[in-house]
């Protein structure tokens, strides 16, 4: 290990940390805004929980997506290692700058789109059009369209279930006391399963898939039973006591908010550390290894970055958002959180880099379509489409500029 190697790794890690920080600052609102807005938890609790859970999600479920970001967007075989190294650094920096700028400018961009756009830009300039893996980019782009739709459908279904099984019953409170814990149990199942199926954790403890599912089922059962026990004392104060139902969901919503934070960490940590994971083998051996594992320390770095982002700038984001959201009641927030988090978690297990914020927006629209919201402003869809179109070229352009500058400096 020589000084240059340490310098490169140190620099790249610093940039990755910056990227992770901006991701955390950006996306913390996605997970916690509904819970804070509904006064289920305070700002401080929200940012702390979001920080910790993003970290946990990043470290334990992260790697799948990182693989995609690292090697599959740019065809690494035909570009020389030194150029590749420069390219990864400049892509990371470009994406981080764009995320920070758009956070400042209040644009609904996606951190995932930024990094992919930046990598594409570098790929085009370094190896020509053919070096970019367009098929992979296409499938990633398809998942961007699919992720809001999936979030929308899931949130729609969850809300419809709540309406059918709770609100339309003669004693909504009694139904909520049973249905709520069941959904929470299901949430626990998904989280545990995602932790235990094909992750570093399951490798370490040698847990097979079927064992993982059994453990997840047991955990979900315990969580569900615990929920029923905790809620058993709540009684309806009058006929059609909807506020008590909302009260029950306020408690449950804290859990789904954590679920979003967790899956956000799992999904988005890759945006920050994916390129660095590519740099380490390049700098140490001079070659791009196809099978290099992403070291756990790197995941932890990304996780800490996101957590710090949540706790610093994220507070400001949350304050703005939490104060504004008043029309989203707890049952709605619950449905949005659940739909979004499940989509993101499944996508990150499949290795699809999707956008958390777009999924959340899709979920909000889903609840709206289920006649759950008093008013949904659909003009946000237009904004999202514009941001889709804008992010790729801008991130690519910035990345190209930084890359060219660096090449001149390094020679």
């Amino acid at each position: 290990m020589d000084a240059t190697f340490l310098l490169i790794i140190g620099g790249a890690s610093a940039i990755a940390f910056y990227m992770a920080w901006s991701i955390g600052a950006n996306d913390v609102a996605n997970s916690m805004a509904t819970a804070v807005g509904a006064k289920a938890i305070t700002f401080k609790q929200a940012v702390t929980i979001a920080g910790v859970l993003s970290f946990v999600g990043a470290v334990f479920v992260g790697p799948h997506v990182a693989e995609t970001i690292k090697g599959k967007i740019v065809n690494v075989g035909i570009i020389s290692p030194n150029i590749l190294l420069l390219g990864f650094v400049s892509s990371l920096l470009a994406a981080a700058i764009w995320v920070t700028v758009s956070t400042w400018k209040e644009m609904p961009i996606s951190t995932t789109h930024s990094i992919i756009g930046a990598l594409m830009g570098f790929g085009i300039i370094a190896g020509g059009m053919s070096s970019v893996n367009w098929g992979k980019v296409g499938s990633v782009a398809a998942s961007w369209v699919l992720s809001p739709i999936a979030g929308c459908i899931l949130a729609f279904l969850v809300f419809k279930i709540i309406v059918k099984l709770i609100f339309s019953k003669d004693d909504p409170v009694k139904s909520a006391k049973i249905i709520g814990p069941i959904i929470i149990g299901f949430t626990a199942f998904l989280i545990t399963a995602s932790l235990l199926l094909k992750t570093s954790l399951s490798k370490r403890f040698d847990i097979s898939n079927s064992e993982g599912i059994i453990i997840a089922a047991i955990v979900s059962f315990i969580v569900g039973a615990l929920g029923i026990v905790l809620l058993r004392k709540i009684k309806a104060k009058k006929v059609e006591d909807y506020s008590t139902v909302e009260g029950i969901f306020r408690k449950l919503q804290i859990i789904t908010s954590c679920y979003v934070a967790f899956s956000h960490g799992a999904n988005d940590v890759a945006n920050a550390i994916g390129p660095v994971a590519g740099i380490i083998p390049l700098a140490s051996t001079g070659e791009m290894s196809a099978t290099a594992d992403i070291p756990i320390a790197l995941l932890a770095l990304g996780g800490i970055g996101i957590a710090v982002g949540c706790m610093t700038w994220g507070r400001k984001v949350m304050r703005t958002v939490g104060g504004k959201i008043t029309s989203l009641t707890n049952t709605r927030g619950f449905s949005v959180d659940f739909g979004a988090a499940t989509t993101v978690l499944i996508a990150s297990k499949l290795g699809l880099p999707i956008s958390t914020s777009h999924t959340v927006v899709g979920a909000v629209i889903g609840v709206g379509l289920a006649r759950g919201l008093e008013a949904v402003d659909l003009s946000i869809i237009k904004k999202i489409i514009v941001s889709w179109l804008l992010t790729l070229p801008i991130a690519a352009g910035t990345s190209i500029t930084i890359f060219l500058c660096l090449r001149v400096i390094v020679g």
Partner: protein
Amino acid sequence: MNKKKNHYRAPIQDTFRKKSPFGQLLDHMGKVRECTLLLGDGLVNYSKGDYKNFSELTENVSKLEHEADIIKRNLRNHLPKSLFMPVDKGKFMWALREQDKILDHAENLVRMLDMRHTKIPKELQEIFIAHVKLVMKTVEAMEEAVENIKDLIETSFVKREREQTKKLIWKVHEYEWEADQKKYEMTQGIYKLEKKLAPMDVYHLLKISDWVDDIADHAENVADWLRSMIAR
């Protein structure tokens, strides 16, 4: 608002608005409620020949009408095309419009009464008071029906709540019909007395019974739009 300070990205917050259109409709209904409370007692006093505080009442009703107008305008001007609501936006606006007309007619009624203190003949006093009470009951029934929107929204329009609203709407129709009958009774009574009364008095009395009844008509219209709003 503090839009300027808000430099942080938060796309989700923009998808649902803080101010709910239904909340504003209910605010507007609150003005109608205040107005009915004033009007009920005021008209009874008027019919008994007590004009002492009537100018003050007129001012108050006028103020309420103005406040309600501001709510209505605010709501109408800030309902963009891209806004997606669980009910038909057109029907929602019609309900609001009819609800606003209740106040318009109430204002018109008290202004006209204040301009010319037409004496209600002793023979008609009882019928007049009964008519006023029925009209106010119609409006109150409408208020209750509109109020139930809260529960409809909360449960996202489940069948049980829709049935409840329908029942409340039926009550509005019933009272409106009864009020109509009283109006015809009143008109009949005025024609019976036409020889005894001055022509201008007859004219004004006929007008008054129309104006009072208009309020109930518009309350019924609100209920009708509400009904079609919640229909699937």
